[in-house]
């Protein structure tokens, strides 16, 4: 800011970047291009952008990981709490800058929670007598006081992320940098962590009442996040990055989101519901009678509009997958002669019809993934799982990298087809590559693709044989909005082409959008099975299964339902008003 030199007593800006360009890797791929951003001390900034836009790279440059720990170059002006991260080591900078990364499990270094927190203080040479009280205070401040004796590998994603937050805050940094802290959490945990994180940007520093005097200023926060509805209150400023690593917009959050709404949606960003409604032309905020009427009309128009009525799956009532009395055990078989652990999934009866998408929802640890593995014949099962065709089912796992077996994208897609010995191998592989926009990447190494590209690859490999039954475990996890939309489109498309599709997800909007029926799995048993409306309108069921309706579906349950609106039509209608490229191909955003 211009007046900065006139105020010599002022604290240095938390972040000041001018003409900041960053390349990563040994080949010097440019990820950030001429970025200008200033975060005054004591304020927060939200960083938005599609996958591959350089959000994580910005974080890594701020904390000095690039270029110190990972290969890459940083050019231009960069000052973080008064230091140039290129001149001090990341460990030294860490005394004033806290970091929370995306993956909950991969940022806790030690095997116990309290060791982890004490470790962060020991490294900074803190007084050994204060360590325990400061560690306890930091855990309490994030609502994780009860976790202090737990083994880190037993923590759930949400718990681990709270502990990571406490470990970043325990040394009372001036600046906290968070890289998509809720991206890999289920909605309930994401909401809790999101509210916690949003609160940090507004709360004074040193809230833990530790022995050190509280500072007068607030803590500065750089928050990379795309699940904005989970945050409640957003930081005051926003920096939006485009697919090419350039700044799309930077300024007060309200102004950036409203003025650039369409651009951000086109880039593949999620926006808060209020902004989406405004951009879609709603007459006022949600809850105003005019808006309610407008939204209900919009959804009803879509039901008979472009999307068209879906052929009723009951019409083609042929069951592609028949499940009767299914129990599923988890883990490798025959482990010693210990008394057998009880099955994780018990007594499931289920028919999945051809042409139908069945979405399975439920709390973490409820057995959703285990059920899918049981259906795929990968775990020990008792009971009956029959496919109409007798051939095994195809399945897409949560982490696409777990399924890779070949060294090029083309071979990866061809792998199953070769094993099956189909006659039209090249045609099939070519069509699958084309369908998922992978043709330009056909010779690339699968491990070098981005997360969104790997997801498309895993869908291409699973559908190359046009399987009668396709299972998908959290297929939209960690993807940006455009990628998630493309994935939803592909799954729905498989069912519309006559396949039976079973999708496990936490995302109720996805469930409403693509599901013909929704199954709710709680504690390993089927708690409910019905249409999306039947499940989503049942408050008691939602509470029992830990289903947290996102704001749009919450409106549906309270208001829209009474006006004859279908939840799926509502979600699709609002999506259709905004511009989302249905195949999710965003040229130039593949890095």
């Amino acid at each position, binding site marked *: 800011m211009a007046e900065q030199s006139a105020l010599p007593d002022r604290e240095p800006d938390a972040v000041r970047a001018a003409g900041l360009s960053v390349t990563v890797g040994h080949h010097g791929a440019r990820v950030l291009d001429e970025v200008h951003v200033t975060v005054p001390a004591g304020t927060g900034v939200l960083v938005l952008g599609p996958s591959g836009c350089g959000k994580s790279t910005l974080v890594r440059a701020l904390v000095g990981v690039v270029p110190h720990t990972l290969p890459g170059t940083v050019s231009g002006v960069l000052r973080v709490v008064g230091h140039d991260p290129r001149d001090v080591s*990341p*460990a030294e900078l860490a*005394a004033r800058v806290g970091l929370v990364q995306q993956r909950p499990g991969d*940022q806790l*270094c*030690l095997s116990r929670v309290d060791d982890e927190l004490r470790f962060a*203080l*020991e490294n900074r040479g803190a007084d050994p007598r204060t360590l325990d009280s400061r560690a306890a205070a930091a855990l309490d401040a994030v609502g994780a006081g009860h976790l202090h004796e737990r083994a880190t590998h037993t923590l759930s994603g949400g718990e681990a992320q709270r502990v990571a937050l406490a470990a970043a805050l325990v040394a009372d940094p001036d600046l906290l940098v968070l890289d998509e802290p809720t991206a890999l959490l289920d909605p309930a945990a994401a909401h809790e962590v999101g509210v916690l994180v949003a609160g940090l940007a507004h709360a004074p520093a040193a809230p833990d009442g530790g022995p050190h005097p509280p500072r007068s200023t607030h803590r500065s926060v750089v928050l990379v996040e795309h699940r904005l509805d989970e945050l409640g209150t957003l930081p005051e400023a926003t920096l939006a990055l485009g697919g090419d690593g350039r700044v799309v917009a930077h300024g007060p959050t309200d102004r950036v989101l409203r003025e650039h709404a369409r651009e951000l949606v086109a880039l593949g960003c999620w926006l808060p519901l209020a902004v989406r409604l405004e951009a879609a032309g709603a007459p006022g905020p949600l809850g105003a009678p005019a808006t309610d009427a407008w939204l209900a009309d919009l959804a009803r128009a879509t039901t008979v509009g472009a999307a068209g009525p879906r052929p009723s799956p009951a019409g083609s009532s042929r069951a592609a997958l028949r499940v009767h009395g299914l129990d599923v055990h988890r883990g490798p078989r025959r482990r010693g002669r210990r008394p057998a652990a009880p099955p994780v999934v018990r007594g499931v009866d289920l028919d999945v019809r051809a042409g139908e998408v069945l979405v399975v929802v439920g709390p973490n640890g409820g057995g959703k993934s285990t059920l899918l593995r049981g259906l795929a014949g990968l775990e020990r099962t008792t009971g009956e799982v029959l496919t109409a065709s007798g051939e095994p089912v*195809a399945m897409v796992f949560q982490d696409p990298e*777990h399924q890779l077996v070949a060294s090029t994208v083309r071979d990866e897609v061809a792998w199953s087809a070769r094993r099956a010995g189909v006659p039209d191998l090249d045609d099939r592989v070519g069509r699958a590559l084309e369908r998922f926009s992978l043709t330009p990447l056909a010779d690339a190494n699968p491990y070098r693709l981005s997360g969104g590209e790997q997801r498309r690859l895993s869908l291409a490999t699973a559908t190359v044989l046009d399987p009668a039954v396709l299972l998908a475990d959290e297929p939209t996890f960690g993807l940006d909005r455009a990628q998630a939309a493309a994935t939803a489109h592909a799954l729905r498309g498989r069912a519309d082409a006559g396949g039976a599709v079973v999708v496990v997800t936490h995302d109720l909007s996805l469930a409403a959008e693509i599901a013909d029926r929704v199954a709710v799995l709680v504690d390993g048993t089927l708690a409910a099975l019905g249409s999306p409306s039947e499940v989503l309108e049942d408050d008691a069921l939602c509470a029992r299964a830990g289903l947290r309706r996102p704001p749009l579906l919450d409106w549906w349950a309270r208001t829209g339902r009474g006006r004859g609106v279908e939840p799926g039509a509502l979600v699709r209608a609002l999506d259709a008003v905004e511009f989302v490229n249905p195949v999710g191909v965003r040229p130039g955003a593949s890095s």
Partner: protein
Amino acid sequence: MTPGPTALERWNPTVKLATVLTLSTAALLVTDPVTPAIGWVLALAALLVLGRVPVRTLALAHVPFVVLATSLLVVNVVTRPGGDTVHLGPLTVAADGPTIGAALALRTLFVGAASLTLVLTTDPVRLMTSLHQHVRLPAAWTYAVLAAHRLLVELPDAWHTIRCAQAVRDPRRTPGRLPRSPRALGAAAFALLVGAVRRSERLTIALESRGLGSGPRTTARPVPLGPSDVATGVAVLLVAAAVVVVGLLGGWVTGVGALTA
């Protein structure tokens, strides 16, 4: 609620490590079966009494050592020449074979049990803290080892998930069975390795973001190293020496020379 740390757990981990290493090295110089047998029994007694290790845990932890010991015994019985011939049921073997084989097998069990006193009764954080405090192992090393240890704990689950994820891609697979062909296991191992490398990169960043290596550090739970820790080590070595002396007087101890005789 839970009983306090056992005597073996309280013992300074660095001294314990040094003692175990000394005993294991010394055991290499002895080639009769009786001496390592006595050592093994003493180590087991220490684990059960001073370490309060459950019998079941101890038995399971012995499995790899028993396998190795058995194979050593069999190989020596069948292949080692020398000494009088002995009839073992239908087999006729040289007498040195069973003796040396038993000695090597018991030595394996003894070294195994000794190392179990380290593995089963030592908190990894305490061991690393002590190595940093008492033998000046750099903190960057000790904590890298601890982070790697944490990664190891989660590898079995990742391995199972990867095998499932790859097995499901085979349209000709047998339901309910994961492939065990070398090719399938190799592909799974590669995916596991890539995942581990990616995770270790993130853990490295996490270690730095906690300020590891930023300067002088303090220790929240210093591991005490007192005269009693050293005395315990000395006592253990004296017991070992006594076992050897008794063996020499009794005439059953033989040295390395017996192997090549």
